[in-house]
Structure formats: structure tokens, C-alpha cells
């Protein structure tokens, strides 16, 4: 085993070592922190608390955060923006999206046409890795990963979100101070 040669300490270094200068230096810094924390304005409420007080205080989640999925609706007509194009299901690496569409007969300019309409949308959040590829694939800004991050449920079946949950949002208990 090769050993590292440590040079012999000089007299002053020996003296410093005897008076524990190395330890006192570190202790001085930690003491400074202890005193400073009480009066620090960066801490929560100036009380020397630096941690987030979740769930009493909701964390400030960034606008781009990839959280719970949502199907957006037209704000005026309250119809779904989804055109059942299936692009999100194709883009998903984990194959956790199922888009079920049905054909509806409509009349365009006096002629009967068939139109694809969204019937059911299944999103398995237990397999989702929140990479947001589905959100990027969506041509109508319908499927969106929101800032909601509380996805825990009591059962495996609860991870599978249907269209109603995706559109209305899931009911969760929100704790606030």
C-alpha cells in the first residue's frame, strides 16, 4: 500500500495544533451562524427557520413544473380542447396514455361529414415519469402538466385518471396555515 508522505509540521504549526486553532476556527464559524440565524431576514418569519413549512405553507412551485396532468377546456364554451389526435399517446415513452375516440356525424357546408370526438381519456399517473413529452406533442394546448404535485392515493387504481378527473381535477385536502 503506497503511503503519502506528510511533511513534518513546523514549530508554529505545532503551536497552532496545541491550542486547537483548527477546531476553534470551525467552531467560530458555526457559532456565527447560530447567532446570525436568529436575526436573519432570509429565514422564515425571521425565527431562524430555513426549511419549507409544508403542508402549513404551500411551496412556491415554478410555472413550468411538470405535475399532475390536466385536460384543458375552452374557457368560453366549456368544450374540451382535445381533438382526439392521439399524438400524446404516441409521444409517451411509458405508454401510459389511452385516447378513446368516437366518430360523430356532423354537417359541414350542407354535406354530412364524420368527425372524431373524444370519448374517454385515460392517464396512468403511476407509470408517468413527468417528462412532458405529451404536453409538447399536444397541438391544441389541451393536455397540460400542472403545478399540482400531490399525487398520492390509497390504491393502485387511484393512480389511473379518467377524463372527468383530468378535466375537473382531483379533490385533495389542502392544508394551509
Amino acid at each position, binding site marked *: 500500500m503506497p503511503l*503519502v508522505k506528510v511533511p513534518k509540521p513546523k514549530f508554529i504549526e505545532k503551536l497552532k495544533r496545541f491550542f486547537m486553532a483548527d477546531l476553534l476556527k470551525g467552531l467560530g464559524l458555526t457559532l456565527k451562524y447560530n447567532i446570525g440565524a436568529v436575526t436573519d431576514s432570509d429565514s422564515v418569519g425571521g425565527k431562524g427557520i430555513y426549511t419549507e413549512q409544508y403542508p402549513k405553507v404551500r411551496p412556491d412551485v*415554478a410555472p413550468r413544473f*411538470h405535475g399532475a396532468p390536466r385536460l384543458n377546456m375552452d374557457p368560453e364554451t366549456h368544450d374540451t380542447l382535445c381533438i382526439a389526435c392521439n399524438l400524446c399517446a404516441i409521444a409517451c*415513452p411509458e405508454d401510459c396514455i389511452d385516447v378513446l375516440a368516437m366518430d360523430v356525424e356532423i354537417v359541414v357546408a350542407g354535406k354530412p361529414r364524420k368527425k372524431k370526438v373524444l370519448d374517454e381519456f385515460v392517464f396512468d399517473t403511476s407509470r408517468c415519469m413527468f417528462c412532458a413529452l405529451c404536453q409538447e406533442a399536444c397541438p391544441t394546448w389541451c393536455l397540460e402538466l400542472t403545478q399540482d404535485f400531490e399525487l398520492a392515493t390509497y390504491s393502485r387504481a387511484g393512480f389511473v385518471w379518467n377524463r372527468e378527473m383530468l378535466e375537473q381535477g382531483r379533490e385533495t385536502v389542502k392544508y394551509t396555515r
Partner: protein
Amino acid sequence: MERNRLLPSGRVGTGGGVETSRRTLHAVTQHGTGAGCPAWLALIMHQVEIATTRETLLDSPEMVLNMGPQHPSTHGVLRVILKLDGETVIDLDCDIGYLHRGMEKIAENRMYTMIAPYWDRLDYIAAVSNGLVWVETVEQMMGLVVPPRAHYLRTILTELNRIASHLLWLATHALDIGAVTVLLWALREREEILKIFERQFGARLTCHAWRIGGMPNDTYDDFEPDIRRFISNFPTRLDEYETVLSENRIWLSRTVGIGVISAEEAIAIGLSGPALRGSGVAWDIRKSRPYAAYADMDFDVPLGENGDTYDRYLVRLEEMRQSRRIVDQALDNLPDGPVNAKLPKIIKLPIGDYYHSIEGPKGEIGCYLVSDGTAQPWRVRVRPPSLINLQALKQMCLGHLVADVVAIIGTLDIVLGEIDR
């Protein structure tokens, strides 16, 4: 044979079953335990093994100790099988694979754009660097020209990720050795970087930071002020870590001369990153094969002298200072323009293979990609720095104490997600 000779008579069973059992035992000793051995036979063989053991553990000076996979200082699910003489390590073996998820196989069944999130889950401490390997490999293989702004942003954010990775290393390494204060301080600084990542990429840890051809989004509004604030505070924070650790007698006695590896040995094993530079080998892919915008950056590569744990600690601290310098320069010279190149809707690579590697926080992380011309890769192979750095563990640990094994695992800076893949 010997096993049969030592078998105590009447051990196998009593009553009517004796004859059958003995006959089978003879058959076993003649042919050995091959495949197709029934379960009940294996049970008897097991009894034979017990019967031949004459020495107890206490009779031998050696002791075999399992460290991990639940041991908190193995940084994940690494199992180290230690052979000890007293408290001195005389032999050592590693058992890995507890975190195997088959990422390389999964990648063979995904389109090129879909594979990037899986790369984040290799070295989850440095997800941004890992993602960069994948997108750069695909871009270079298809001959895509990425806009300069994307290159600069990639440089800034991977360097921030390097700082975040080194901070977590410092925090856990110091905690392993017994300095709890540094853990709290280092995680405080890392939190600031993770907040920048959350605002930029939408996730803190597994960011899915890059897309093939550029970035998913341009920078957010306060991107530059946020990073400027971080890099202006950071040097004083680094000095604080040094005040607590660098001269501390406990830290010195736990790190100086521990886990020494010479430059020749380090090269022979194939170490990379700070583990290699700690031994004094000037090898940094950012300098030797510049990627992203590193060719335009001015920075130094810190080197150690002795190749011990203390030198690797100093190298990583200095690397954080240099990373800060790179981020500062890249922000000053950040060009305007688009962050995405034009891409076909379905990416198909030319038939052939390609290897590209970058200097990740842990070492050289590379991707070997074989394409058969379809929309999915034929083979994706990861060159994992942690796995190869772990090979030095035995050489570093021999002759040291059990407590030093913890320090040496810490100094190698391994992540099991990347070792097992």
C-alpha cells in the same frame, strides 16, 4: 471422496428411507451436483455441507462482513463483501445489480426522442449532464447543427449541475466521515441550483433538460439574475466549507493517506473525472475533446498530487470554483437567437455506430449508439463512470480499516442508478 468419507453415518435419515437416500448420495458424489438435480437431493447435499464444517468462524482470524445494500454510507444499494482481519480489510468484493432497470434494453424499443428521460434516471444526481450525452450523440450522428445559444445554455446548466453534484458529494462525504454541519450548508446551496432547474426545466431532479436539436424552452424571465445571485454568493460559501474542513485535524486524519491510488494504477483501471485527476493525471474531456461551448471557455483543470482522499476532496472543491468561472463567462457571452434547430418529425439515424462522451461530474460518461436506419436504435450502450471508478475500490481499501471503506466509497462518488442501469 472426502465429502462422502466425512459424512456421519445415520445423519441422512432413519427408518425406511435410509437405503434410498444413501444410494442417491453415492450417485451424487460420483457425478457431482449438475443441472437437473432434484430439490430434495439438494437438501441432502446441504446437510452434507453442514456435516463437513468442522471449524467455526471463531477459529479463523478472518471474518466475512457484509456491508450494505442497506448501509447508508454505500450511497445507494451497493453491497460490499469485506474479508476482515480484526478491523483491517484484507479482501473485498462488490455485489451490484440491486437497482437494475434494464435501461439499455428499454432504449432499443423507444423512438430517439423518448429515450432522453431514461438517461436522467442513470445518474440522478447529475441528470442534466446525462441528458446532454444522449442528445449530443444523436445530434452528431445525424449531423445536426445546434444553434450557439443552445450550446451556451447547455454549458451553463451542465456546469451548474456539476456544482450541484459535487455539493451533494461533499455533503454526504462529510456526513460519512462525521461532519454534519457541511451537509446542511451544502444542501442549502444545492437547493438554489435545484430551484433554477425547476424554473427552467420544470423538474428538480430528473429534469429531462434537453431535446434533440436544442432545448424545450428558452430561458425563463429571471434566469440571468438568479444565476448571477448564486455565483456571487457561492465563493464565500466554498470558503466556509474549507474553514470547517480543510484544516480540521479530524478531517485530515480521516482523509490524508487514505485510499491512495497512483497515476499508473488509475489509468490502468480506467478511472476518469476527479478520481483520476486526484492522482495527478491531466485528463478532462472538456479540454481534450470540447463539446457544447467549452472550446470558448477559459478554465483550469485542478490536479492532485498524492492520489489520496484529501486530494480528491481538494480537486472537487477547486472544480466547483472553475465551474463557477465557466458559468460566469458563458453568461457574459450568451448569444441571442433560437434555441432549437429544425428537425424532421421522425428522427432516423444513418446506419452505423457512433461513440460520444462528455465530462460528467463523476467522470467520462459516454454513449455508444448503433443504428440500423430505423426510427429506433439497434443498441444503446452507456459508458458509466461510476461503475468503472468503483473498480478501484479494492485497491484503495486493502490494508485500511472498515471505517476508511466508508470514506473511500464516499471519495469515489458513485451513484448506483448509473452502475446498475
